[in-house]
């Protein structure tokens, strides 16, 4: 009998294994967090009227598009790492999750470069309400990316030892990590147009 039950087989009452229910409950709280940020943005912008700058006049569209492509690609490679495990292909999992990690680092590098450009133009969170909400939302999002990088890095490295003893549970862990990662991508799918296109 497992020390922790329902890590692989679903519970009869929920129809889900525990980690899947857990991650969705966690993401529900994340929806509240980012929902709060986005609604703050809306209220601040509506209240400022014409004084609010167009995002495109301050942001670098090319870097924003690049980061969007990087993140969507990383979502795809994360999925491929999970499907590789389902197909019993551990080498494929290592390859695709490794690429996911590289894309994540690339995203954070681009983000750091963007921030350095802002600071170079003396644009700081204290400069204006727009810059404050920009740095807050993208900063919190970047922290979520960093958290995902740490977890995925663990799964790629020492955490992958579980594949030998319990491949089904490890596959489920990657599925859960993937669901979190897709959510972070989903937040950026809204953050990019709000900050860069509107």
């Amino acid at each position, binding site marked *: 009998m497992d020390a922790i039950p329902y890590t692989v087989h679903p519970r009869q009452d*929920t*129809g*889900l294994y525990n980690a*899947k*229910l857990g991650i*969705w*409950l966690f993401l*529900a709280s994340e*929806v*509240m967090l980012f*929902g*709060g940020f986005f*609604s703050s943005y809306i*209220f*601040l912008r509506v*209240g*400022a009227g014409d004084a609010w700058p167009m995002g*495109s006049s301050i942001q670098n*569209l090319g870097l924003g*598009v690049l980061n*969007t*492509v990087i993140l*969507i*690609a990383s*979502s*795809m490679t994360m*999925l*491929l790492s999970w*499907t590789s495990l*389902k*197909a019993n292909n551990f080498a494929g999992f290592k390859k695709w999750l490794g690429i996911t990690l590289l894309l994540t680092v690339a995203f954070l590098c681009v983000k750091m470069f963007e921030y350095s450009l802002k600071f170079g133009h003396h644009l700081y969170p204290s400069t204006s*309400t727009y810059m404050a909400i920009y740095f807050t939302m993208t900063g919190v999002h970047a922290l979520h990316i960093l958290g995902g990088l740490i977890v995925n890095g663990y799964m790629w490295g020492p955490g992958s030892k579980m594949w030998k003893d319990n491949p089904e549970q490890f596959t489920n862990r990657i599925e859960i990590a*993937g*669901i979190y990662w*897709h*959510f972070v*991508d*989903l937040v950026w*799918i*809204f953050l*990019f*147009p709000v900050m*860069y*296109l*509107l």
Partner: protein
Amino acid sequence: MTTTTAAVDIQKEVRGYVLIFVSLLALTGLGVIVHILNPSFLVRIVLILGIATIQATLSACYFMHLISEKKLINWILLITFLNFVGMVIILLGAMSNPIHGTTHVT
């Protein structure tokens, strides 16, 4: 036979994911095109946020498997959404009914 069937199923699944991935990239490009065309602000908001919503729906339904997930998860998300909408309504109510002698400053 079972292993081959499972492998074929996974390949079919991957092809679906690739299609969604390409769609997401194409929709990103479409959003940028809308921005470049520079329509009126209202049209821009509707189009760009509409495109983002379609992208988010595709990602949630297929990448996050919501379309084939148990109903319990859909209920969790629905309750979360209603909770969020309720809070926004409360905030809107507060903004339209400030304390006498005060104003909202942004």
